[in-house]
């Protein structure tokens, strides 16, 4: 279980997070929604310690993330970055198998390559792409390689930052199903950022909406459509009129 307690973070005079409280239960799929630029990506990076929050407390299974071994902490996580963040000096399979080629999880090259190709298959990429370089792939393919890399070492907790943006509807469906499978079959904890409402419905157990630096609404997916919160209603129906300003 990950708990966030009054997390704040500013960039200069811009107050992005203004006290975020959130509980992410183990073994469930939590989806974060919210307007562009509200700080969703910043929030994920705060949990991983890639961005240091200005204030507040983050715990994993009751332990402050600042305490304990950082390597052991990070080894439990996988992350798909919004921009893919593939290493352009490595081939596709070396990217996917990055963690399996060095450090504590190191294994023989042939075995690592096999695992990488299997993960690539799961995100809908044929073995042919394994030896290409990231620059030779389309944007959607890069995204899926990033996804394969995030799940390659089978981490307990996986963060997906917009896994389906830039994908065609069929591929988006494949990825939604994959995320669902990872949670239900492998028992992983997933935290996903997405703007795609069909994705939200396909993968979420719980939904949290970030607005104005705080969690505006949070609850099980079944309650999302029923809620009377005008912000959530405007967001999920994509209306231009409503309490959320369109200029930000």
């Amino acid at each position, binding site marked *: 279980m990950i708990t966030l307690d009054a997390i704040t973070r500013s960039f200069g005079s811009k107050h992005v997070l203004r006290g975020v409280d959130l509980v992410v239960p183990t073994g469930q799929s939590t989806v974060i929604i919210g307007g562009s630029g509200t700080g969703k990506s910043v929030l994920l*990076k705060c949990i*991983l*310690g*890639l961005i240091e929050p200005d204030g507040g407390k983050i715990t994993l299974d009751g332990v402050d993330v600042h305490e304990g071994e950082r*390597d052991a902490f*990070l*080894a439990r*996580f*996988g*992350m798909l*970055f*919004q*921009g893919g*963040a*593939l*290493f*352009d000096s490595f081939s596709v399979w070396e990217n996917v198998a*990055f*963690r399996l080629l*060095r*450090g*504590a999880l190191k294994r023989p090259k042939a075995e690592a390559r096999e695992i990488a190709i299997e993960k690539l298959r799961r995100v809908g990429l044929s073995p042919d792409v394994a030896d290409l370089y990231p620059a030779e792939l389309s944007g959607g393919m890069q995204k899926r390689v990033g996804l394969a*890399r995030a799940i390659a070492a089978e981490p307990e907790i996986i963060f997906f930052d917009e896994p389906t943006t830039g994908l065609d509807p069929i591929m988006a469906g494949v990825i939604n199903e994959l995320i669902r499978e990872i949670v239900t079959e492998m028992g992983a904890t997933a935290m996903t950022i997405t703007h795609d409402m069909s994705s939200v419905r396909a993968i979420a157990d719980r939904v949290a909406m970030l607005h104005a630096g705080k969690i505006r609404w949070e609850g099980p997916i079944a309650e999302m459509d029923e809620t009377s919160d005008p912000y959530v209603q405007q967001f999920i129906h994509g209306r231009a009129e409503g309490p959320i300003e369109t200029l930000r």
Partner: protein
Amino acid sequence: MNAAALSRPLAALGRATLALMAATGRLSLFVGETLSHLLRPPFYLREFWLACLNIGWLSLPVVGMTALFTGAALALQIYAGGARFSAEQVVPSITAIGMVRELGPVLGGLMVAARVASSIAAEIGTMKVTEQIDALTTLSTNPMKYLTVPRVLAATLCVPMLVGVGDVIGIMGGWMVGVNRLGFNSATYLKNTWDFLEFWDVGSGLVKGAAFGFIVATMGCYHGMNSGRGAQGVGRATKSAVVAASVAILAANYVLTEAFFSA
């Protein structure tokens, strides 16, 4: 003139001083962190090897060319200067000492700064702005260990070797001019050079080379890691790395020369 107008330049001076001190502090912390990772595993040998290739081997042509032309020009100048008090015969020895003590390490270091500090800063800066550095961290790989340590180590070991090669080529450049243009006897020229040079003349240049290599890679990595966002940020990081490395090399050269040779 009122007091506010008077204090404005002072305030600006103060701000600049504070910024400089803060930057020095950050750089010192960076160097400290790099050194602290130097001896602790894991070690990334592949990265180290690639860095040696890029910094050492691929810099050979540019360092060699620099040394060749510098040695040649130096011989001409020393001949002209020596002629003013009929001391033309000093050409081999002064060319050699000028090359191995000063020009070899300094010009070699500056060329490596132009070539390597820029490429390191651009590479790491691009990795930073495309979140690849963050990705490394989440994949349980410490970016300082994986990116900075191999480059700094490789540069510190390779630049002295480059300086050594540059010394030989520079002396050859002087010899070519001496024999072909200034009428020196080939064997005498080389014998004069060899007899004149002392171990510490060459050794001090190599030590300088190691220091300059360390400076180049550290500046490249530091500015890359602290790159601003976007293409502009990377551009600025690259420029700062080259400028900072070059100035630091010249300053370090003075300090080291003072330490090695002042009476």
